[in-house]
């Protein structure tokens, strides 16, 4: 009931504000950060159907890497990782929902591209997962390269860059293939699984995650092709740098924590660290947090309640999960990967 009341109030307010030319919440005063604090809850747009990234289990609880990023932001801003309301958005409506203010942020396997950053009017927080588009085929199908798809069918989900990348690649190679385009990923994988298509294309991480859920995972292999670069990360809306900074630095914080070696298990040992970098990072010194409009020890909350990036990765995609993904490009820069957090100074 309260919701409808709020709705009526917003409508009334909006009507009242109609006279003045309302610009988007650009000023710090009208930042989403205050809105989230007042609400006491973060509204986070997720997919909800990608095992390992965001998935609803039988109890209705959300889990996954994307979900943990939402939790980290909630822990930093509100001190409670559970104060998140998840909105399941499909790929076609995610940007409208974000631009319209229905969600505070997206953490939904969204690829960072120039057009989305500029003309669609989004802001991309640091990449939380470096991915590339791949192709899943049956091991016994005899398909080894994309050229083998001449006259064969590929299942693909619409509304994503995947569809366009596939078309571009095949056009370059001059391969005449049959796309079978589904509205949602579930239907696409189901159709691939029962043999409607010879290939299934999507981001490699998704393919690997999904492969492990197929009846006989060993019967399916990833082709040795990468059709595109897919840097996936959280997204906020343009013209709200106060809020964007929070999302950006919480994400960096996850990586920085791993670089420092701080985990949810051993954070107690660092509480009184004499390393000034770590002391600043955890808010015992300086005002890094309060300058952003957050509690000064926001990273302590994030690490105790969610963990560092390595923990999040292992829990959802890596060694502790059913997917057993290699860190690969998603390792820290110190381990030959691409994750690199600017210094917390």
């Amino acid at each position, binding site marked *: 009931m309260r919701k409808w009341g709020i709705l009526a109030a917003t409508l009334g307010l909006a009507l009242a504000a109609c006279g003045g030319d309302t610009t988007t919440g650009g000023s710090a005063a009208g930042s989403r950060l205050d809105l989230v604090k007042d609400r006491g809850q973060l509204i986070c747009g997720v997919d909800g159907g990608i095992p390992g990234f965001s998935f609803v289990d039988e109890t209705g609880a959300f889990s996954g890497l994307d979900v943990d990023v939402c939790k980290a932001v909630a822990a930093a801003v509100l001190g409670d990782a559970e104060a998140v309301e998840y909105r399941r958005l499909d790929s076609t409506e995610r940007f409208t929902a974000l631009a319209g203010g229905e969600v505070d942020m997206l953490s939904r396997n969204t690829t960072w591209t120039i057009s989305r950053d500029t003309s*669609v009017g989004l802001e991309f927080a640091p990449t939380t997962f470096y991915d590339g588009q791949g192709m899943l085929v049956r091991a016994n199908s005899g398909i080894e390269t994309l050229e083998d798809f001449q006259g064969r069918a590929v299942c693909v989900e619409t509304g994503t860059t995947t569809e*366009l990348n596939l078309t571009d690649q095949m056009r370059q190679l001059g391969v005449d293939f049959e796309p079978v385009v589904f509205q949602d990923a579930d239907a696409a994988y189901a159709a691939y699984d029962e043999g409607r298509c010879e290939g299934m294309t999507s981001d490699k991480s998704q393919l690997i995650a999904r492969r492990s859920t197929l009846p006989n995972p060993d019967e399916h292999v990833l082709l040795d092709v990468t059709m595109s670069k897919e840097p996936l990360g959280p997204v906020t809306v343009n013209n709200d740098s106060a809020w964007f900074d929070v999302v950006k630095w919480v994400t960096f914080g996850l990586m920085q924590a791993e670089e420092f070696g701080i985990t949810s298990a051993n954070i107690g040992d660092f509480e009184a660290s004499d390393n000034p970098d770590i002391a600043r990072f955890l808010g015992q010194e300086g005002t890094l947090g309060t300058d952003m409009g957050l509690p000064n020890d926001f990273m302590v909350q994030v690490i105790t309640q969610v963990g560092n990036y390595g923990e999040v990765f292992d829990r959802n995609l890596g060694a502790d999960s059913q997917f057993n993904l290699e860190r690969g490009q998603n390792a820290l820069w110190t381990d030959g990967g691409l994750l690199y957090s600017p210094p917390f100074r």
Partner: protein
Amino acid sequence: MNSDSSGESFAQKLKTLLRDERFWQVAFQVITLGIVLLLAAFFVGNLNRNLAQQGRSFGFSFLFNPAGFSIGESLIRYRPNDPYWRALMVGLSNTLSLVAAGIVLTTVLGTAAGVASFSKNWLLYKLSRLYVGLVRNVPLLLQLFFWYFAIYGTLPRPESQISALGLVFLNNRGVYIPWAGSAVLALLGIGVTIFAAVMAVFLWQWRTKLRIETGTGGKNQLMGLIGLGVLWLAFVILALQWTFPSPVDGGGVTGGLRLTREYVAALSALVFYTSAFVAEIVRAGIQSVSRGQWEAARSLGFQSGLVMQLVVFPQALRVIIPPMNSEFMNLTKNTSLAFAIAFPEIYSVANTTYNQTGRPVEVFVVLMATYLVMCLIITLGMNQLNRAVQFKER
């Protein structure tokens, strides 16, 4: 108007005015118009502001940009670097192929199921009622998924496909049927078939009329009918350069016409669903013919098959055709659900177009116009038909 109109007489005037119903009629319309205009201004103003804020303007020029996505199946030539309007045309052609086949099959199946509910055979009657009672009460979208995944999805893979008499092949990619050698020939064949059917109906009516009026005759017309049938068959068999599907080693089929699984599943679901409604319409139509007509026809010594054909059904048609129009329109609009099982009809292409261009309003306008025109064409056709079967007042 009196020049010395005092306040009282003005009040009088006002009173008469307020009691005058015509004044209220005008006032009410003015108020309505005002409200509608205000709302429109409010919505359009917001739309403009929102679009401006997103840095976009309203316009259809994007339709000429290259689309960049590929489409699974199409009746017209399409390449990914064709413009958006061409992609939308491809979607439209797919929708139309679904609508055309759907209308024909629905009419046949629906009428059969409707007539079957009057069958003397208890089983057939029960079956018809069961079919209608089941199918009408389950949502179409669910039935689409059911056909796509739970029925056509269980067909074997191309390696172990099913063949029927070596003419038709079935696997989980689709259904392969014999077909005319080229698109032009196929269209020609369809056109000739329609023409032959119209001629046959005409001849049959002529024969019936003769037999009713003279009690004999109709031989010439019967010969004409047979001749027509032979001619049509000869044309279809010889002139269309049939190609037959033939299996390929290692699974798959070449030649013939491939109906993709998406198309077949969408068509099955649409036809089964809509036919249940048509069956009810046909049943109600037949029931609307008064009992006296049956009895009168029987007392004249007609066999019951003839009663149906000559007396009851022509009268029932008058009641049947108007609601059939709306069923066909529903069928047309329901084809838009086929996108959920990956059939690239116009809504699906429009959806992709909106995703790529971020122009919901323009895409919606295009969609709306397209469906409106389709529905209009169906309505016009049905109205013509309706005029043909209504009572001739003499």
